[in-house]
Each structure stands twice: as C-alpha cells, then as structure tokens.
C-alpha cells in the first residue's frame, strides 16, 4: 500500500496536490473571495465542516439557529455587500429549510451559492437517513443547481456556480455534494474561475437602434416618467442613473427593491410606486406620455390592474433579462442590456431638459398626500404612536446613513415610504416573495456585508416571531444589529385588508407576543419597550448609541392603516388616500 501511494504521487502533475473534495471546496471559496459563510452543520455535511476547521483563519463561519436564518443572512449579506452570499446546510431537513430563502433570492435576484451535504452516492434513491431529493425540490427556485457525486467535479462546478450566481441577472445557485465526494481524495490541480459557459449568455448585447429609438422618444416627451428597480443597484449603475435623469430632467419613482439607489432627497426622486406607494407616481403613471422602466419587472403590486396601466404612454424598458421585456407590460422600445452600459449611451443621446411644469404636478400630488396622509402619520394627534413617526424620529437620528432591513407587512410599507437613504445598498427587504421572518436573519447578514455601518432591523410583532431563534446567532456572534419591533398587537396588513374588504371580520390576526425585552435578556441582548411618545426619541437614541446588539419594542396604534392604497384589482390611478 505504502509503495503504491508513493508511486501514485510521483505520477501527479507538478502543480497537483492530493486533497479531499471538502478541502477543494474551501480552496474554491477562498479563491472566489468568500470571507463569510452562514451555516449549520449536520451528518451529511460533516466532512466539509471538518475541512472548515482547518480554514477558520481565512473563512468566517456564522453559526445560525435554523437554515432558513442562514439563507436569509446570506441574502442580507449579498444585498449590502454586492457580493455572493454563501450558505452551508446539511442534507434532508437542512436542505429543505433553505427553500423559502431560495425562492426569496430567486424572485429578488440575489446572488447566493448554497452548499448542501447529501447522503453517499450509493445511497441516493434508497430513502436513506436524511436523504431528500434536494435538486428536484429546488429546481424551480434556483437559477442553477447541480449535484456533485465525484470530488473531481468540485473545482469546475464551484467556479460555474459563482459565475452563474453573480453574472447577468443574479440569482441563487445550489450545489448538492454527496458525502463520498466530500471525503474522496483527488488530484487538485488548482482553481480557475469561470467567465464563460457556452449555453449561458448573462447579458444581451446592446442594440444601438433601440437606444436611439428610446432617446428619440425621451426627447419628444413632454411628461416622461422613470420607474427604477433593483437593476440599478445590481448593475452598480447608481451614478450613471443619476446622470441620466439629471440631464433629461426626468422624474424618477422607485420600486421597493430600487429604494436607496437614488438618495431620498434628490430633487428628481418622486417617491414610491405601487400598492402603498406615493400618490404622485401612481396617479401620474396614467398621465405620463413616455414611461421609462429601468431594471424593474412590472410586478402586479406595482402595476395594479394591467388593463388600466399607463395605456396612454409609450413604454421604454431597459432590462438585462430579455424575458422580462413584454412579460407584463408591452414595451414599445426594448433596450436590452446591462444598464451600466445602456444608461450612458442613452444619456449621451438625450437633450438637456427640465420639465418644470410636469415636475410641479408631482409636487402638487405630494402636497395633497402630505395633507391627507403623511402629516397625520408623521405628526399624529392621537395618543397612540404611529409607525410613521417612529421612522421619522429614526431618520432624524441616523440622518439617512443607516442600513434599514425590513420584514413584511405594514411596518415594511411604512418604513419604505418614510425611511431616508443617502446611499445605495441600504434598503434590505423581501420584496417579491414577501417572506415574513426575513428581517432578523437578513439583518445579521447585512451587518457582515457592511461592518462599519449601522444596521436597523425594523420588524413587526408577527414577523419577529417567525425567526426569533436568530437572537441566538446575534448573541453568540455578537452581531451589532439594532432590532426595532413595531408592535401593533395584530398581523396588521391582513387585519387592514379584513377591515377594508372583509367587513372587519378579524379572522386569526390577533397575535399575542411574548415579553420581547425578557426574551432578549435571555439571549443576553439589552432591550427596552416603550408605549409613550415622550420616550420615543430617547429610546431610539439609546438603541443607536448602544455598543452591540439592542432590541427596542415600540407599541403603536392597534388599528392604524397604511395609506395611500391601490386596492387589488384596481388601476393605479384609483389609489385611495383613506
């Protein structure tokens, strides 16, 4: 045996070393610039964790409390850092617990590489302990997935995985590695990153004729409106975008994933689109003459009823994903490509314009909305606090420099509507999938992705209870996140709909909460709970000034509603102010 092994080694190419599949995985992660992994060990991924033990000085592993927490943390990390989030989970239940996060990352185009352990290859299909068909379970919710059964595949497949996750329209990739491949020794000949797969075209090429046609439409427009989404952030095209709208004097409205790509106080930022968006951009969508959609996908929460959506307008759609064009809203001019490339081309062809009277219309709408909704939300006269005034106070203290992570529901809509942002990659929320329980773990990842920034997780009393176990992660890794619970003692958004559309039949929305401060204390996290307005500012300041994690619960009005609102099945111009 001894001699054989020696002989074998002498035949290796000089560059090759004999290592296990697990160690090759570590080398792949390091070569891809990975620094942080969110994960949870288990039987089928033990060889990988064993290899990780030797690489602890180069790879920081955050032990989460549930795999769903792990993947949401990976998402939060990707969203604030602009890098690929990496997640480890074991086979069976470990892998199935990733599914919600994969679906969330898929619909919100978040780059992730998830590694799942799998039973030995010879046990596949035998209903082995903790065996589940993770590839088939995750196919519809991954951009790409692959099962590795031989260690020789690891370097090549990992290179592909990272390339696919981050290129073009980003998305989640899952690599399932059988235990035998993790253990198997093979000749590792180094790691080469991937930049081309013949069947995969991440970016369509830019076609000049469409850029010119788009510029013509914009130059003729009297009432242009720009709708921007996360494509600007993913394409790192914030500056190009700002130059574009400034030259054209183009009012720009955002989807909730586009939020923070343009500073809140930019004079051309006319607010939020969609169901709970601002009055102006919704109503004026149906008055504009040219609609310029950039890196957004016309979600039904943005468009409301499609047959009453911007019928009068010529539509220009810039997107890196050709299948998005014409999917929901028919484009008159499709501008395929990375907006980092297309926006400067478009900017060079458009005329310097101001559109003052058109912009005035947005201002008039804002006035109307301030009077009907915003004033009362930010400066309420009632005794109970509103979510809006909490966000407003937070703005005064953070001055728009914090990363705001939100969960799903009323607090999410209010936070997105009122939070101020000065810089990009600062808003982390579950937009497309609407995953309650997203915020707490995502905030952990967000902090790792932007270590020198303040991270505030704003969460409702429903969502916090879905992933509250991640307080354990925060405790153990001492993650400096500020947890702001807006407690209205209801599943507020569902309650609002029940009030408005189901005759106040409050069916199972009355949710009880534990004493969050005590729960936090159990996790050695300091906290406070307030009910009165007079304590708000000081409590927020204490939270922000505190070194390390902190939980603040603020009780807000039980039956406050989020307005404006475009009711389901209505057109955007049927937006209700009350």
């Amino acid at each position, binding site marked *: 045996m001894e001699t054989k092994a020696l002989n074998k080694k002498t035949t290796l190419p000089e560059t090759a070393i004999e290592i296990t599949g697990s160690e090759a995985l570590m080398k792949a992660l390091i070569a891809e610039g990975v620094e942080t992994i969110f994960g949870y060990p288990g039987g089928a991924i033990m060889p990988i964790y064993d290899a990780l033990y030797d690489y602890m000085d180069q790879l920081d592993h955050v032990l989460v409390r549930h795999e769903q927490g792990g993947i949401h943390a990976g998402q939060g990390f990707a969203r604030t850092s602009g890098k690929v989030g990496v997640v480890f989970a074991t086979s069976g239940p470990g892998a199935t617990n990733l599914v919600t996060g994969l679906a969330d990352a898929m619909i919100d185009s978040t780059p992730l590489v998830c590694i799942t352990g799998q039973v030995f290859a010879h046990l596949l299909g035998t209903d082995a302990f903790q065996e589940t068909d993770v590839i*088939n379970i995750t196919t519809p919710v991954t951009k790409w997935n692959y*099962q590795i059964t031989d260690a020789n595949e690891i370097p090549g497949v990992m290179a592909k995985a990272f390339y696919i996750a981050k290129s073009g329209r980003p998305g989640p990739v899952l690599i399932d590695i059988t235990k035998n491949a993790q253990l198997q020794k093979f000749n590792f000949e180094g790691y080469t990153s991937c930049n*081309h*797969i013949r069947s995969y075209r991440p970016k369509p*090429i830019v*076609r000049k004729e469409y850029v010119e046609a788009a510029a013509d439409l914009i130059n003729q427009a009297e009432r242009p409106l720009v709708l921007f989404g996360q494509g600007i952030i993913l394409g790192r095209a914030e500056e190009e975008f700002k130059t574009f709208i400034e030259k054209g004097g183009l009012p720009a409205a955002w989807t909730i994933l586009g939020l923070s790509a343009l500073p809140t106080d930019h004079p051309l930022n006319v607010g939020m689109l969609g169901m709970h968006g601002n009055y102006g951009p919704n109503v004026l969508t149906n008055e504009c003459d040219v609609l310029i959609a950039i890196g957004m996908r016309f979600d039904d929460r943005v468009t409301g009823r499609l047959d009453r959506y911007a019928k009068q307008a010529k539509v220009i759609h810039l997107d890196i994903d050709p*299948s998005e064009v014409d999917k929901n809203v028919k484009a008159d001019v499709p501008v395929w490509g990375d907006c980092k490339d297309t926006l400067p081309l478009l900017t060079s062809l458009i005329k310097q314009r101001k559109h003052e009277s058109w912009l005035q219309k947005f201002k008039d709408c804002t006035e109307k909305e301030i009077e009907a909704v915003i004033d009362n939300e930010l400066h309420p006269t009632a005794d109970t606090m509103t979510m809006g005034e909490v966000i407003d106070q937070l703005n005064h203290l953070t001055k728009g420099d914090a990363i705001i992570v939100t969960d799903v529901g009323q607090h999410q809509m209010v936070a997105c509507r009122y939070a101020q942002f000065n810089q990009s990659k600062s808003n982390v929320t579950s937009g497309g999938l609407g995953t309650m329980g997203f915020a707490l773990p995502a905030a952990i990842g967000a902090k790792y992705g932007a270590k020198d920034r303040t991270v505030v997780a704003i969460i409702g009393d429903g969502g916090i209870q879905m992933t509250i176990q991640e307080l354990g992660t925060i405790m153990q890794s001492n993650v400096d996140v500020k947890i702001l619970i807006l407690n209205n003692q209801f599943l507020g958004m569902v309650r609002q709909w029940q009030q408005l559309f189901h005759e106040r039949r409050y069916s199972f929305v009355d949710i009880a909460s534990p004493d969050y401060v005590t729960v936090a204390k159990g996790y050695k996290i300091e906290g406070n709970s307030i009910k009165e307005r007079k304590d708000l500012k000081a409590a927020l300041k204490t939270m922000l000034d505190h070194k390390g994690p902190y939980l603040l619960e603020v009780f807000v009005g039980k039956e406050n509603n989020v307005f404006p609102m475009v009711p389901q099945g209505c057109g955007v111009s049927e937006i209700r102010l009350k």
Partner: protein
Amino acid sequence: MKQEYTITIYTENQVGLLTRIAIMFSRRKINVESLNTSPSEVEGIHRFTILINVAEDVVRKLVRQIEKQVDVLKAYYNTNDEIIWQELALYKVPTDTIAEKAKVERLLRAYGARAVVIRKDYTIFETTGQREETDTLINVLAPFGLIEFVRSARVAIIKNSKGFHEKLKEFEETEPTKQILTAPITAEKAAEMDN
C-alpha cells in the same frame, strides 16, 4: 387564439434538465401534448421537441423563459406549417381475425402501414405520419379487435433552419455575437432573427 406550437430546444446533455424544462410548463398549467428528447445534429447537444396547444402570446413568453435556463442553448417555436413533422404508431391486432376478415395487403397499401411482427396470436403494424393518418388506422383496425395502440411523441424538423453546427461555434465564442445574444421582441422579429 390557441393553436398547436412545436417547441424545439437545443440543450446541453445534463441530468435534471428535463425536470427544469418540464416544470416551466406545469407551473403555468400548460398541458404538454407530446415530448421527445433525442440527440441532435451536433454531437453532445440534445434536442427537445415539445408540442403544446396555446396562444401565441403564451408560447412566446414561455420560450424566452426556457431559453433563459443556464443549460439551454436555444429555443424556437413554430406553427405546424413551418415544420415537417412525423409521429410513429404501433398497432397490435389478433392475427386470426385480421387474416380472416380483413384484406390485409390492401389495408397496408391504403394506409402506408408496415407489418413489423406477424405471429400466430398477434400481428403488429406500424405507421409513420401525421396525427390524422395514424388516427385513421385506429378506426380501421378497431373492428378487428385492437389489442394495443401506442403513438410516439412528435419529432419535427424546422423547414428553414440551417441546423445547429454553425450556431454552436458562435456559442463557444467568449465574445458575444449579435445573432445569438439578441432576444427577439415580437413573433415577427423572432421569426426574422431565428432564420
């Protein structure tokens, strides 16, 4: 308006890709009328032929979603008059009845069928053709006691396609070329560019 569309997909030969493609139909609750996977004219490249009955708007969006999949090289959709298509059918009938009651020779001539197996107990006929042709023979054979019938999936050749040999070379280039990177916007454009 709903009509038959034949979708042709050139893919890498990858485990799991059949599922990835199949679920794109089931997610949208589109019934697959027939599905065939086979090698293509290019070694190592697989070819899916899928038949569905939907509106043009539906098939266009679907094909773009299919083409987006990482392991898919190219997807096309065509109406029946843009393709040459065939299906193969096998019919098993009792030999005694058929020999006794039918003028087998004439039957075979009239329907272009071929006897694949003739045994004492049963005979198997085969036809190749379009749906109406294979359907007609079922009706003819039914009175003689059709024991088994099976029809293959549709296979189709796109009339004005130049095949995939040249296209593949372009895919293998690292630098994108206009032809393969340009996703069509409308059906007309799609047809124009795919040719």
